């Protein structure tokens, strides 16, 4: 630091005045720097010096610190573009793919054990994929559709198989790893703390896996991934008891129509359990296209953020799997840009990583300048920004007040409407009850009416017969019998002579209410219920009467057959008796109808009243509902405005706070709290570099590198090659032959890595997270320290480094080699003095003293962290 002029602020000023199109025409790394500069008008940390840069870029792109020789070479290089050149060289090296494979393996598998698949072929496959620069979307498609059937590609199914192909485990990790959303808490209910994570989103992802299962009919044979042709996802909130069916759907996206109708490509065979059934339509294939078309915003943001974290050591959103509205990116515009660009670059990971590594942001120093470079400018800007923030806050305050007011109004309107609504429900129930009473009364009335009609018919039939008989009698004996005849016919005391008795249902048509025309219509046209209920008093009373009438009234058709011997006069007499009986029955039926009609009619006013009351209240509720709808619409619109305003106000306030912190940090009284706050703020938003722990692999590889173990392994590999091929002097001069030798040694690198892996185990045990747990968490335990203190391994390495250094001509050379090998930098004068003092104190045991020093360097904070 310090050796590089801080130019980015000036650059920013130029950029800000340029047009948007020229912004887009810039290479991505310039656009990134411009967005970060825009977020930091107070300035940023300066660019880092060569030593920190070299160590950082090696750790980021190769996962290991550089050798002392490499450091010397880089420091000596005076080319102005040597950093960009180094980035390209590191990207072209096979170690990039190796390191990416390790990083992505840990990200995808989180150090799960080898229950079903081996880790190494999977990691090799990842390495091959990164070497071929396979795009991320393609990689994801392969991972989610793998089935592990073919022994040659079985390892690709590791992601699915080591999660036991369990739908919930896979749902959780599709959310976390591919979408950056840890949805696991929304399996049983909407996430209690994160508004964006919904249970139906969880169920939507789960629907892609609902048919997936671990297929292992024979325990002795390897498990593979099976899939059913049917199986749906349903969910029910354990809190709200609200649920539903879920179709396959990524969060926030449209549900995917599943073309499957349960057809099989290979149907299950109950006789052959070893046969893996294959559905015609695979839900996982649907997921591969839904995720792997690269269009889902969360998919883009996730990989953009993860690749950023791969290079920078931390994401723009942290934790990497908790993207949601209450956990915004440290630079929202930056993540938007990256998400868009990673897709525009067709998920070309190496190209994307290159852009990130070329940024100034990647070269920011860990050390903050004594005075934030933009302090002079922001002093002028601050009042304006403050005003702006205050105005936004005020507007937002008003908006929030309005929101609360509207919310209150809405709730109040609902509360005001509530009694009316409740009343209407009650009144409608009353109408229905009254209607039922009317309907119940209508049934016996209709039955009675029907009986009346029958009685009338019977009576008039008998009367007609009687008239006929009278005529016969009159013709046979014309004289005195006459007067009696019309009497019964003309004057049946209760029999109305009406020729067509009214039997039409005497139901008065109730006025169809506007509210319930349909039900009314139904009620009116509903045919009379089958039988009068036995508990219906009217019909119970009516029964004996009509029964008696039926008994008294002889069957109308069987009666008229008079015995041939019977004279007309006798027949007439008999007939008169019959007619009288029928008349009596008719009268009884009429009376019954009358009674029932009266009963029925008596029920009508109540119904009418109920209807009127309900209709009145109904009108009232309609008025309320209209008002509530309007309030609701306004409320939703306001809520959106409020949300947008909240983010704007939050960002403006954050900027003001950041600038104030910068000013406080620049104040002469060396406000250390403000300085720490600024350090954190800048580190979080990439205006300064953060101090980040090495991963277990980075730590192991770097310790091996620092203490000369890796070089020794390489040298041994080269010696092995030379011993076998015995290259002549001519061959050594021949470029072609040298390239061959180099390639062969490169191949032997594999064996170096094998050896290196043997050392990784204890580092991973001590420094890595538990299997299946996130691997990004930092912790420090005494076991780690004790492994280095007494484990023997690191002491041994330190001793071998010391031994090689002890032969150096003087103390300075020894000290320089020690520091370059371990910390990728030269010692400062104090440190040099320390080494000198140490060696002076133990002149007879220089190597042992140097070994102690080397051990201390590797166990130091400076070695443990990237800076």
């Amino acid at each position: 630091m310090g050796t590089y002029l801080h130019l980015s602020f000036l650059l920013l000023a130029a950029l800000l005045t340029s047009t948007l199109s020229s912004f887009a025409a810039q290479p991505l790394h310039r656009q990134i720097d411009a967005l970060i500069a825009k977020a930091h008008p107070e300035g940023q940390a300066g660019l880092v010096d060569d030593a920190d840069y070299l160590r950082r870029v090696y750790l980021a792109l190769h996962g290991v610190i550089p050798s002392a020789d490499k450091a010397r070479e880089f420091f000596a290089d005076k080319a102005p573009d040597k950093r960009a050149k180094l980035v390209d060289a590191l990207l072209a090296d096979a170690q990039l793919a190796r390191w990416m494979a390790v990083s992505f393996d840990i990200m995808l598998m989180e150090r799960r054990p080898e229950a079903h698949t081996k880790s190494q072929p999977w990691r090799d496959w990842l390495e091959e994929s990164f070497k071929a620069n396979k795009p991320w979307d393609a990689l994801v498609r392969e991972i989610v559709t793998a089935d592990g059937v073919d022994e040659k590609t079985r390892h690709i199914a590791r992601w699915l198989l080591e999660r036991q192909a369990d739908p919930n485990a896979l749902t959780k990790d599709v959310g976390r790893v591919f979408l950056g959303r840890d949805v696991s808490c929304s399996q049983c209910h909407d996430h209690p703390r994160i508004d964006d994570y919904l249970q139906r989103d969880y169920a939507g992802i789960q629907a892609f896996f609902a048919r997936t299962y671990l297929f292992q009919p024979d325990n002795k044979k390897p498990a593979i991934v099976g899939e059913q042709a049917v199986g749906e996802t349903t969910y029910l909130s354990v809190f709200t008891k609200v649920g539903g069916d879920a179709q396959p759907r990524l969060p926030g996206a449209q549900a995917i129509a599943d073309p499957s109708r349960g057809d099989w490509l290979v149907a299950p065979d109950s006789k052959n359990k070893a046969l893996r059934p294959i559905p015609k339509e695979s839900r996982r294939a649907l997921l591969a296209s839904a995720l792997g078309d690269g269009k889902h915003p969360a998919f883009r943001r996730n990989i953009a953020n993860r690749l950023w974290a791969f290079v920078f050591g931390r994401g723009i959103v942290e934790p990497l799997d908790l993207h949601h509205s209450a956990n915004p990116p440290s630079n929202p515009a930056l993540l938007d840009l990256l998400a868009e660009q990673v897709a525009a670059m067709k998920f070309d990971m190496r190209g994307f990583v290159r852009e990130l590594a070329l940024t100034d942001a990647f070269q920011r120093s860990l050390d903050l300048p004594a005075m934030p470079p933009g302090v002079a400018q922001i002093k002028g800007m601050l009042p304006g920004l403050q005003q702006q923030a205050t105005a936004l806050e005020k507007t937002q305050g008003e908006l929030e007040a309005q929101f609360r007011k509207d919310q209150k109004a809405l709730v109040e309107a609902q509360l005001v409407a509530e009694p009316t609504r409740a009343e209407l429900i009650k009144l409608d129930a009353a109408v229905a009850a009254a209607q039922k009473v009317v309907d119940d009364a209508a049934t016996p009335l209709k039955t009675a009416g029907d009986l009346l009609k029958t009685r009338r018919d019977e009576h008039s039939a008998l009367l007609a017969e009687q008239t006929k008989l009278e005529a016969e009698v009159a013709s046979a004996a014309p004289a005195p019998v006459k007067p009696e005849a019309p009497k019964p016919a003309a004057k049946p005391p209760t029999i109305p002579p009406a020729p067509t008795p009214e039997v039409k249902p005497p139901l008065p048509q109730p006025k169809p209410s506007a509210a319930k025309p349909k039900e009314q219509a139904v009620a009116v046209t509903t045919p009379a219920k089958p039988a009068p209920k036995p508990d219906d008093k009217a019909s119970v009373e009516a029964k004996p009467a009509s029964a008696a009438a039926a008994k008294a009234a002889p069957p109308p058709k069987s009666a008229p057959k008079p015995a041939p011997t019977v004279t007309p006069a006798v027949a007439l007499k008999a007939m008169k008796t019959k007619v009288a009986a029928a008349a009596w029955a008719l009268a009884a039926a009429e009376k019954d109808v009358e009674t029932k009609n009266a009963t029925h009619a008596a029920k009508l006013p109540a119904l009418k009243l109920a209807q009127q009351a309900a209709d009145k209240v109904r009108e009232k509720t309609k008025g309320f509902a209209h008002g509530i709808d309007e309030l609701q619409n306004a409320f939703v619109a306001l809520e959106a405005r409020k949300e947008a305003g909240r983010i704007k106000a939050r960002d403006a306030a954050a900027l003001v706070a950041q600038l104030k912190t910068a000013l406080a940090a620049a104040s002469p009284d060396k406000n250390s709290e403000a300085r720490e706050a600024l350090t954190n703020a800048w580190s979080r938003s990439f205006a300064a570099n953060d101090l980040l722990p090495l991963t277990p692999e980075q730590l192991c590889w770097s310790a091996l590198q620092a203490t000369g173990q890796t070089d020794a392994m390489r040298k041994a590999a080269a010696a092995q090659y030379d011993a076998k091929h015995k290259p002549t002097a001519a061959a050594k001069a021949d470029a072609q032959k040298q390239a061959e030798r180099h390639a062969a040694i490169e191949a032997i690198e594999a064996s170096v890595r094998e050896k290196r892996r043997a050392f990784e185990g204890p580092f991973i045990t001590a420094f890595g997270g538990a299997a299946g747990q996130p691997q990004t968490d930092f912790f420090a335990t005494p076991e780690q320290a004790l492994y280095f203190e007494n484990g023997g391994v690191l002491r041994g390495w330190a001793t071998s480094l010391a031994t090689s250094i002890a032969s150096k001509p003087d103390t300075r050379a020894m000290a320089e080699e020690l520091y370059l090998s371990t910390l990728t930098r030269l010692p400062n004068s104090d440190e040099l003095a320390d080494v000198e003092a140490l060696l002076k104190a133990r002149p007879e045991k220089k190597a042992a003293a140097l070994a102690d020093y080397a051990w201390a360097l590797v166990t130091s904070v400076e070695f443990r962290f990237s800076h």
Partner: protein
Amino acid sequence: MKPCHYSCRSADHVLSRRQFFSSLAGASAFALPGLDLFSSPAMAAEMSSRQKRMIVINLAGGLSQLESWDPKPGTATGGPFRAIPTSVPGLHISELLPKTAKVMHHLALVRSLNTNLPDHGKGTYLMNTGRRQTPAMEYPVLGAVVAKALDTGGASALPGHIIISPTGSGGRSADSAYLGPKYGSVSLNGGKAPQYTERPAALAEEASICANDIRRKLNDRFALRRRTAQTDAYAQSYEQGLELMRSRHIFDITKESAKDQERYGSHDFGRHCLLARRLVESGISYVRVTHSNYDTHNENFNFHFEQVSEFDGPFSTLVTDLFERGLLDSTLIVVMSEMGRTPTINANYGRDHWGKAWSICLGGAGIQRGAVIGSTNETGTEVKEREVDAGHLFHTYLAALGVKSTARFNIAGQKVPMADPAFESIDELLV
């Protein structure tokens, strides 16, 4: 579920285990509290009022409930052994446990356990976590939960969760899931002190002192550039390691009296029980001792005769000692297996895996003395009353230790239930 994040810079999250109190250098000047304090029972009693602890005796492979806590003599399933009376009137246990029978008034039994998982792996997971295994979620083991729940944030460099077994890595395990490595078990391989707590012969003490002095100086210098909770935690972890080396004697039972060593016996299990006593006296929250192996598919009766008899002496001695030292009221002691054994005796005079009706024994802190929960039918083939699941037991252990078992851990802002919310504690078993 994550124990801590880069973004979280609170020292509480990054400092290892019980935060070490000393400054970066010169930690050796301080004595660790909780060490060597309990030379007298009175001191132990004083401590007992302050801190709860738990000892689990794991009878690996699956103890036969019929040859131990729930004998059924004279029935088709009962086997050859008799039942004997105990110090609790009316309570009988197998004659293979004569010494334990004499201390039963300190203990309690649960005889109606139905886990229905006749499998070593699944049963172990269930009894250890109180939950059934699911691929979607990994749960911390009992020791990790207890160590975290009882962690008072004190100054000890000692681990809170220790496993003593005949074999093991000697290092820290990743069995604490989302609770983080701080609560992972440290295994005392064969009863030896934790891995790497002894300076190798080849390394001179002066070399270690010199190297650590240089390390401190380098760290102090770098701290001027940037210092965070993480860098402090890393620097301090070395001081904790050195402190652990100095406290190594708490893992050494030869420091116990010759008489005590004799009382516990010279075999592994006896020595490990004595070590467990020493560890809880030193303030360690959770100690698990394993006694192996009870997986008696063949010759169940011969094997149980040997195994249970070997268990009986040290276990009853441990219970007696904890009582006499006033530690039983604050120390929960549980004897468990991953499952029971079949009532049916197979053709090889063995009993097979069984999870439907079996027993555990427990006592001490928070537990009713002499209580018997539940029962099985005459031949032990079914639970007759008060069926109990491993989930109930997990809640009960926590409740007995004075921890609200329905509480939740706050894991980086996420609330995670300590115990399976589908179950609750067995309240009639609690004091």
